[in-house]
């Protein structure tokens, strides 16, 4: 690491400000706390919000896992992990969820339940679910303050009218602690229930939009729905109604990504690569790490 950079790349004042914003976010679940988002040596849109959260929290005793769309080895995850290794000498990194204390993720929450000692940091492009119905930030702030989400709910109504169901696939608006509705970042519907009464703290960082928010542990997180049209997760059934299995590990319980293979056509595979490895390890008896 070249001389002149502080541990964690950002100066201590910057990290302190962000930690204070995090505390405020935890104290007001779901409330978007504005903060001075620093310039990072990567473009906005590549996880600078999540990165700033990680850098503010990470210490020498932490073990970090970075995933992107569930995979540790995707380009962005690799890039971020290497940057953190470079700027935080002495910090361990891992691909095993069970070893991690800090998990930074883009667009997925791990399949296996988190533990109370862990903190999940999600990268957020657009923090405000109301942006689709109201362009003025002033008005949006008032709407959040008064929990006035009728216009958002109308969007759901219109979906049901047109398509007989709510068609939002990711970024599903979710009400935290019975007041603020958040955009939980582009995680699939599959992952939204994990926010509810989570054992671990879940933080959300939007670098470009300069907002931090949180779903604290054991907090109510309810995806918006109607009394008679409940929230549903993705359905992985095939044409005859059987639940599809991962082509690699055979699991019928995980969130599956769809790939097109030249010979086999459409194949389905676990999105969470660590989970998939864990399933294979169980099958071959080598499951020690996947406790």
């Amino acid at each position, binding site marked *: 690491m070249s001389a002149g950079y502080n541990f964690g790349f950002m100066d201590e004042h910057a990290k302190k400000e962000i930690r204070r914003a995090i505390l405020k976010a935890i104290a007001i679940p779901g409330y978007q706390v504005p903060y001075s988002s620093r310039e990072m040596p990567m473009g906005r849109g590549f996880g600078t919000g999540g990165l700033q959260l990680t850098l503010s929290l990470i210490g020498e005793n932490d073990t970090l896992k970075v995933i992107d769309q569930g995979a540790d080895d995707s380009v962005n995850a690799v890039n971020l992990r290497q940057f953190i290794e470079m700027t935080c000498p002495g910090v361990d990194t891992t691909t095993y969820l069970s070893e991690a204390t800090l998990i930074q993720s883009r667009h997925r929450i791990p399949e296996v339940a988190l533990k109370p000692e862990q903190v999940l940091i999600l990268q957020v492009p657009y923090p405000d679910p109301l942006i689709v119905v109201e362009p003025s930030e002033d008005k949006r702030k*008032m709407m959040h*303050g*008064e929990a*006035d989400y*009728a*216009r958002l*709910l*109308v969007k759901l*109504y*219109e979906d*049901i*009218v*047109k398509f007989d169901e709510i068609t939002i696939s990711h970024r599903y608006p979710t009400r935290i602690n019975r007041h603020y509705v958040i955009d939980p970042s582009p995680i699939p519907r599959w992952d939204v229930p994990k926010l509810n009464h989570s054992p671990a703290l879940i933080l959300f960082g939007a670098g470009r939009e300069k907002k931090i928010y949180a779903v604290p542990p054991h907090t109510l997180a309810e995806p918006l729905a*109607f*009394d*008679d*049209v409940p929230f549903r997760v993705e359905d992985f059934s095939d044409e005859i109604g059987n639940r599809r299995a991962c082509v690699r590990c055979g699991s019928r319980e995980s969130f599956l990504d769809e790939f097109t293979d030249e010979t086999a056509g459409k194949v389905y595979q676990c999105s969470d690569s660590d989970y998939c490895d864990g399933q294979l390890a169980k099958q071959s008896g080598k499951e020690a790490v996947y406790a």
Partner: protein
Amino acid sequence: MRKILEVRNLSKIYGRGCSRCVESTGPEQETNICPHCGSVVAIHDVSFDLHEGEILGLMGESGSGKSTVVKNLYFDQTPTSGSARFFNDGIAKDMFGINAAQQRYLRNHSFGMVYQNPHLGLNFGISAGGNIAERLLMSDVMHYAEIRTRAKELLVRTEVLLSRMDESPKNFSGGMQQRVQIAKALATNPPLLYLDEVTTGLDLSVQARILDLILEIQQELNTAMIVVTHDLGVIRLLTGRALVMKYGRVIESGLTDQILEDPQHAYTQRLVASAL
């Protein structure tokens, strides 16, 4: 008849205002604009009572301030001074003393508003049914089928073609847009409805149909209404009592038929005589 609304000394001044605004404006000075500071005294010292199930007319020409009165009572604006009390089941609420969230609650549950310009009352980005759904959602109805049924009921009642329920109102005729507005305003069965020049600009036959509708609904639901208009025919047809306004002041008030047949104030006499 129980009181539902009590308005006292309501005033609205646009601009910084000065100590001479009030005395330099009004019907005698023939202006709303204060010559000393340029502020606009839109309304001054407006007081009246409204009872449950009653229809009150606010009559006047452009600049009279009649629309400003209802805009303030609907919380679209904040008055400069004055007070208003709303009575619900005998409990009075100080309308301008409660906080914004409480005002929004009143607005969503107890009031309805129909504007002259449908763009103010309707969201053209969503369907006609969606507009009504929005109002129901704002009053905490969270059951989709119930919302759908109620929206259909209201559209049928206001004679909007059900087949167009899921279309945006932007392609509707003016009369139909107004009827969607009325349906939306009535969604929560509000005890008080504000109607701001709702038929102005519409064809006469369309006007007649809408006025009919308003009166029928009022008889069915016993909704109290404040009807803002410059049209004497509308006043005569809909209202039992009326206020005549000029340059922001109330210059005459009384029973509607008395104001139209035995106007006391010179301006009212001129107004009534000018009716075609």
